[in-house]
């Protein structure tokens, strides 16, 4: 017997995949995107606040940021999602009604913020102190100098690490199924799971996995491309090098 037959039959049943595909596309994919994109936005904003607090000269900002980061980075994501999603459910009920998405997004954002905060902080701290001095010497306040000069440079330096975190977030979005989802709220993974449970064949789960790859792989390549461009500048501008730089790159002097 083919030792891999279980693998083929259980995970690569095209028929089972085709059956799950329409619901994956119309329900699962939009829901995963809603969860991941809103948590990415909120998590990045919170992460930036944490990063700024983390480099603050005020102990009362630095310390809470430190503790927050340690806690939310240290807890398993599933534990945080349950803690927020179930612990705050009565509160959520009052504000948003029975929809588990707001608390799910909140929990995902809080987790992502802990990591993204550290990523942004390391980027911001890598910007040379001379840049701050240069901006202050022009008359910018500390806040303006940070916002216009330091943070944009710091964030650019850590774009790949930031996207890594967004990829983790896309995958972690599947964990909101802990909170109990009605049919129309199911995201990719949950739909795959439901098909697997009713058919006894895991192929729909593999299909869900393929959807995650379709989301994450292009994201990685896009950010690498952007990163390269930011480091080198647009290709056309490179043609405008000055005569005294030309020998260094071995081109024919004009």
């Amino acid at each position, binding site marked *: 017997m083919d030792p891999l037959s279980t693998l083929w039959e259980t995970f690569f049943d095209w028929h089972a995949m085709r059956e799950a595909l329409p619901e994956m596309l119309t329900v699962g994919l939009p829901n995963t995107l809603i969860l991941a994109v809103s948590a990415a936005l909120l998590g990045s904003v919170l992460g930036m606040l944490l990063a700024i607090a983390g480099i603050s000269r005020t102990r009362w900002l630095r310390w809470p940021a430190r503790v927050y980061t340690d806690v939310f980075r240290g807890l398993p994501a599933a534990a945080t999602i349950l803690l927020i999603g179930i612990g705050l459910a009565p509160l959520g009920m009052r504000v948003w009604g029975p929809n588990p998405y707001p608390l799910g997004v909140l929990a995902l954002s809080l987790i992502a913020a802990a990591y993204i905060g550290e990523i942004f902080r390391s980027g911001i701290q890598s910007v040379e102190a*001379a*840049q701050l*001095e*240069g*901006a*202050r*010497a*022009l*008359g*910018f*306040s500390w806040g*303006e100098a940070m916002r*216009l*000069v330091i943070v*944009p*440079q710091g964030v*650019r330096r850590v774009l790949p690490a930031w996207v890594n975190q967004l990829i983790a977030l896309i995958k972690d979005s599947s964990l909101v199924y802990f909170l109990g989802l009605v049919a129309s709220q199911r995201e990719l993974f949950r739909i795959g799971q439901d098909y697997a449970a009713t058919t006894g064949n895991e192929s729909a789960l593999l299909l869900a996995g393929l959807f995650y790859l379709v989301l994450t792989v292009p994201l990685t390549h896009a950010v690498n491309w952007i990163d390269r461009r*930011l480091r080198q*500048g647009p290709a056309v*501008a*490179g043609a*405008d*090098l*000055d005569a*005294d*730089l030309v020998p260094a790159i071995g081109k024919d002097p004009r």
Partner: protein
Amino acid sequence: MSTTTATPVSLAVRDVHLAFGAHRVLRGADLTVARGATACVIGPSGSGKSTLLRTVNRLIEPDRGDVLLDGRSVLGDDPDALRQRVGMVFQQFNLFPHMTVLRNITLALRRLKKLPEDEAVRIAREQLDLVGLAAKADARPAQLSGGQQQRVAIARALALRPQVMLFDEATSALDPELVKGVLGVMADLASAGMTMVVVTHEMGFAREVADTVAFMDHGVVLEAGEPAAVFEAPEHPRLRRFLSQVL
């Protein structure tokens, strides 16, 4: 360059003291620069030249002493407003690498002077033209030579129409063949009547351009005077020793 000099002011630094912990960097430094004059500050490394310069625009706050523009103390002013009146150029240029040359210059015009975009761009192009880099407006700083970057940094500071310009070893990081162009721009600015304080190791520039040369050592200005007097008839033994080492 006449368009760049707003109304130059006189500058006086009076008995400025500063310590970083136990390390006393400035120990009662004095410097006087007449309206529209250029003072070159020379002296060995670690003598406090760059620190003194930074107390003028209050990038560093002195512990004691006073800084006066046109006879009025600036220590009570809003430091951000003061720095728009006092331009500064650094050894490492400190251009913003994520912006084009033009953007580097328009940033403060738009955000601080609240000028409309087209007005900011017009001023920036005018300043770039004055330092001979009109063609580089859309380049990134990293695409320019060190000398060109420093000229952009000068244009960036001048665009705010400062009343005083500070130069902190503006040519020390440059390859020798690029020094001349930057010193030329600085000399033009001096002859146009800008009040300038120039911390420099370029003794030729100090001798030719400066109205006053101040020699600093161990946190004080030991000797100051006209270039001819300082270079040809130095009084203090430490100045004589310094000159014998650098000339």
